[in-house]
């Protein structure tokens, strides 16, 4: 969930009133936001780097507000204020308009076909006669940053470039060149670099180094030139210094390049709708023409208003309320979705503005109606759905066994299902290839290389971590292990295992054997061949030779028990003899 930090006083000024922290928290809650933290720059720095560094930092109070991940229109102060004001019915939602320039000279962005290999899409727009202040400018930059982090997927899907239009001249060309052919003065650099040099330079840049991988290994890098060959930007890495916007900038050329056209259009719509507020003609955006290699041309931003029709009945039925169509339309209008009742009086026509890219199905509209109605005003009721509850047989058996094992004096553990290869193979005297283990491709630590194929390592690690406890340690776990199984759709399946260990100064085989007898007694499996259970001498790499037996129940092998091999004990950093039992409980269902 993205967090937006806004200056409290600026926020209140824009909202036209002040709130106490509690009141504002309450407002956020109703609207589906969360006032996460009340802080200041000074506090943040002092928390992260110590009081000394915070000396002199601003102590203006900041609100950190958590915004739902799909509400790109709330990622800046402007959007938050607009959303809240409409919600509280203090203003009407503005209508965003795309206009042609007065002089008819539309800005053009021409895409060449080389871009296909690296970053094929681009959209553009112009904010004309905008007035920046320090706060507005900061918010403008911050919004781009938030969009980059969220919908743009760290610039992989979309990257935004904003330029002072008065410093450059169209038409612009979006192309892709070999890195060594691209040379320009990048933003805030003192001299010109080639693209290769820049990539080297930014390897140590804490901010930019995260984006380099997007184009690093491509033969061509994307780049945008103006008609005089001035580099606007090398997306998705950096803009040129030449066209950078300042507080004095009056006309802004915005380009978004990317690999996902839908998202690029959304991003452009969000930026221009948010900041057209500061244009001379409020909420108007000057169109730019984008010409694709196939010659087709499009006007951007789209700023599309879409109409949806939803029956009032449906909204009432899904939420569990009974509002009139007119009042539902009013509720939706408060959510920035201008709505009116049409037709037979039961239909509501809803206009989805370009800022609400998150509305993609009717249930989104139902949700907004519910939010405006107030979740906490909805009458809670119990559905009449009558059903008979059933336990999953495997879990039922597990529950029964767990209680009886604890009653038998063993203590339950809960260990990780993931472990290292070593745990299930080397330490148990086996080769990993013999285990049928499922392997993880991208573990962050060696602790999580495989899913466990046996519960034993978990229990032994538990003992190792609790060596200081009085002997004997008697532990058990009934849980799932995972084995490859080509008969399953995903190629692997779980098995429910039961494992118990006895750790003391003596091996205590008889204790663990007694536990097996008790388990079989509980499972109503008598002692004996065929229909009963027996244990037969067996080999097991984890067990001491001659001290291992295989458990057969109802004619099939279900597991092993025995005294652990001293090598196994040592490898798990244990010092005492230990006996163990591990069986599959599924055959007893």
């Amino acid at each position, binding site marked *: 969930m993205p967090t937006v930090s806004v200056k409290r006083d600026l926020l209140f000024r824009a909202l036209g009133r002040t709130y106490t922290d509690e009141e504002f928290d309450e407002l956020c809650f109703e609207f589906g936001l969360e006032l996460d933290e009340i802080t200041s720059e000074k506090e943040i720095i002092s928390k992260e780097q110590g009081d000394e560094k915070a000396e002199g930092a601003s102590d203006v109070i900041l609100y950190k507000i958590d915004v739902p*991940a*799909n509400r790109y229109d709330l990622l800046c102060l402007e959007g938050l204020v607009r959303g809240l004001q409409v919600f509280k019915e203090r203003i009407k939602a503005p209508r965003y308009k795309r206009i042609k320039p007065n002089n008819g000279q539309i800005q053009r962005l021409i895409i060449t076909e080389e871009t296909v290999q690296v970053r094929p899409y681009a959209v553009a727009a112009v904010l004309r006669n905008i007035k920046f202040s320090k706060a507005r400018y900061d918010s403008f930059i911050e919004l781009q940053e938030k969009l980059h982090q969220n919908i743009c*997927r760290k610039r992989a899907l979309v990257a935004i470039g904003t330029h002072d239009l008065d410093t450059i001249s169209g038409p612009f060309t979006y192309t892709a060149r070999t890195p060594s052919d691209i040379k320009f003065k990048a933003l805030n650099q003192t001299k010109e670099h080639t693209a290769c040099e820049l990539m080297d330079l930014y390897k140590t840049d804490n901010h930019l180094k995260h984006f380099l991988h997007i184009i690093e290994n491509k033969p061509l890098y994307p780049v945008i030139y103006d008609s005089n060959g001035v580099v606007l930007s090398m997306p998705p890495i950096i803009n040129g210094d030449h066209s950078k916007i300042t507080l004095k900038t009056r006309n802004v050329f915005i380009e978004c390049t990317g690999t996902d056209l839908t998202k690029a259009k959304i991003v452009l719509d969000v930026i221009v709708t948010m900041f057209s507020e500061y244009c001379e003609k409020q909420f108007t955006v000057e169109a730019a023409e984008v010409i694709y290699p196939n010659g087709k041309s499009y006007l951007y931003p789209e700023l599309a208003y879409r109409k949806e029709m939803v029956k009032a009945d449906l909204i009432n039925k899904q939420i569990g309320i009974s509002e009139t169509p007119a009042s539902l339309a009013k509720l939706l209008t408060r959510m920035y979705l201008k709505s009116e009742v049409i037709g037979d009086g039961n239909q509501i026509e809803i206009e989805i503005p370009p800022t609400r890219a998150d509305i*993609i199905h009717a249930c*989104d509209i139902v*949700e907004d109606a519910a939010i405006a109605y107030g979740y*906490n005003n909805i009458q809670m009721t119990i559905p009449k759905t009558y*059903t008979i509850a059933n336990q999953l047989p495997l879990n039922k058996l597990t529950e029964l066994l767990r209680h009886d094992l604890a009653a038998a004096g063993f203590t339950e553990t809960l260990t990780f*299902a*993931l472990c290292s290869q070593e745990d299930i193979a080397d330490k148990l005297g086996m080769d990993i290839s013999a285990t049928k283990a499922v392997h993880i491709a991208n573990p962050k630590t060696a602790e999580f290389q495989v899913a466990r194929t046996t519960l034993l390592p978990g229990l032994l690690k538990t003992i190792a971590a609790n060596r200081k406890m009085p002997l004997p340690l008697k532990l058990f776990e009934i849980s799932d292990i995972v084995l490859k199984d080509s008969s399953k759709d995903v190629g692997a399946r779980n098995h429910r295992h039961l494992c118990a260990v006895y750790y003391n100064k003596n091996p205590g085989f008889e204790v663990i054997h007694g536990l097996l007898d008790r388990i079989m007694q509980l499972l109503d499996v008598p002692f004996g061949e065929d229909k009963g259970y027996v244990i037969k001498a067996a080999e097991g790499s984890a067990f001491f030779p001659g001290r291992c037996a295989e458990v057969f129940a109802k004619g099939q092998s279900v597991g092993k028990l025995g005294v652990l091999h001293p090598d196994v004990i040592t490898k798990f950093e244990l010092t005492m003899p230990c006996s163990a039992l591990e069986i599959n409980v599924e055959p007893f269902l």
Partner: protein
Amino acid sequence: MGPAASARPSRPSSRSGSMTGRVRFQWMIPHFSYKEIWEQKAKHFFQDHTESNRGGGSKWWGFVPHSRWRIPGPRFSGLRSFRFRHVPSHLHGADMADGPVAQLLLQRLASCDGGLDSLELSSALGLEHQVVVGAVKSLQALGEVIEAELRSTQRWELTPEGQETAQDGSHEARVFHSLPPEGLVQSELMRLPSGKVGFSKAMSNKWIRIDKNAPGGPRVFRAVDNVEDLVQAKLQLVQDGEAERLSEKERNELKKRKLLSEVTLKTYWVSKGSAFSTSISKQEAELSPEMISSGSWRDVKFKAYNFSSKGVLPEGGHLHPLMKVRTQFRQIFLEMGFTEMPTDNFIESSFWNFDALFQPQQHPARDQHDTFFLKDPAEALDFPMDYVERVKRTHSRGGYGSQGYKYDWKLEEAQKNLLRTHTTAASARALYRLAQQKPFSPAKYFSIDRVFRNETLDATHLAEFHQIEGVVADYDLTLGHLMGILKEFFTKLGITHLRFKPAYNPYTEPSMEVFSYHQGKQIWRQNQLVCLVTMMGRTGAGRDKRKDGQMEGQVPGQTWKDGIRDRQMGRSWHRALPTHLLGEAECRESRRRGRHRYSKTVQTQGVHLPRKAFCRPCSAQPINGGSSGRGVLSLLGRREAIGTVT
């Protein structure tokens, strides 16, 4: 235990041995499978026992003065039962009153004027102070025989390491002195007994310097000609009993280095009581079978019990506290008529984990950073292809009233195997199966099982935790119904005040988080109970479809995720913790902190939910199918992290 045992005269052994023996023998009979062996062992056991009582001590039995109090378990390792609890603590004091030390004390007291100091007495008698204290307490228990006043004095003492330092110099000085003029290779220096500690201290004192580029590896040289070992000097002061000459700061510094410790010495000033006498009548500790049969109990005087002591903890195994909580939640669902879904597949395909839940293929949760993908088996091969087609269409072009995400949906991406990131994957399968069922019948489902996130472990993040999930499927279900069910669910947990906050969750629509009111703290606790609730259109209430009169099966599902970090709950779990594995101290400590993070202290990795796990935007949607006009209300709940003992 030691002093008490040695101070005790041997007990009459005949009855305690044989009687308890018989009792015990009957008690062990259920363990039939090893009956014979046990009988044999049992004989040895009692022989030993009897002998030990006669002889006042033997291999492993002598330290237990009250053998009959602790009926040892019928197992070969008779040892185990006697770990701690041999003497019932409520008899502790009185038991020693007729011991030789108490007698000596009374004699000394009779011959002196004012009184005696317990410490002085112990050194005069050449006994441990604790033994004398035991005798004092035992005499106190008899009533007015003596009066004892507790006096405590603070004293600074050298720790064993401190004593060594006072004698041989501080570690840093030792390091300094062990350096020859030509210096010493650092690795060699580190091998010296004082190497590690001494090196860093000497470096910070600037006594030595290190040349990292010296041939043969980093080499350490003296940086000054000679040094003054202040630490040693200070410790010697303390040793000479002049600790007060050190400043508070100096003492604390040495304490921090574990060279010095502050000990509180508790001594008794003992004087004659109003009923003082040097001869104490022998009192019986306990009622015995013989006393009952002979009736002698009528004439015997019994020692008083100390009722402020604690009893002996019962033996037995324990269930894991988190598993107990799981049982509790499971029970609630069953009480509410929910049927358990199968979740026994940790391995899931991206298709069921993400795509079927309308989570777009570029969604951040599908990053390598967040999800464990599999190397082997890397891909799932078997899918219901007609359903895959519908999911593909809905993602890339929309449908069922949805605009879709409008991107190029790829089967390869959906085939990638992973460790399921939520149990909603299992719910998706269950709903798919439900949709295949003709005719449709209403259903309520739940599950509680493990899920996996690619996290680096720390005190507040685990790579595995448990999730709760619930689904209700029926006609005409509403958001109000979902809230009603949630309310009932939480009421059963003892949580009555709920508040619902709108939230975003791609696979549920509408979505909400649930906040609960903490009665104790009088605050709304965020995060402690987080539920995301949704009504999702299995088809998204398709407007166009409706026009066609098709009513594509709507499954308004409601998802509810809940991560319990409730402190109250936490505490009650705590009480339930097996102290067996925990140790009292840790329990107390974590109780004091009011958290159930026993993870760190005890290596049971705790009960916490990575906060991210609640807030993580995840997406979901059409459990697709063409069935008509029905609703699914789904309660998908997410549970707290699993507590893991590692």
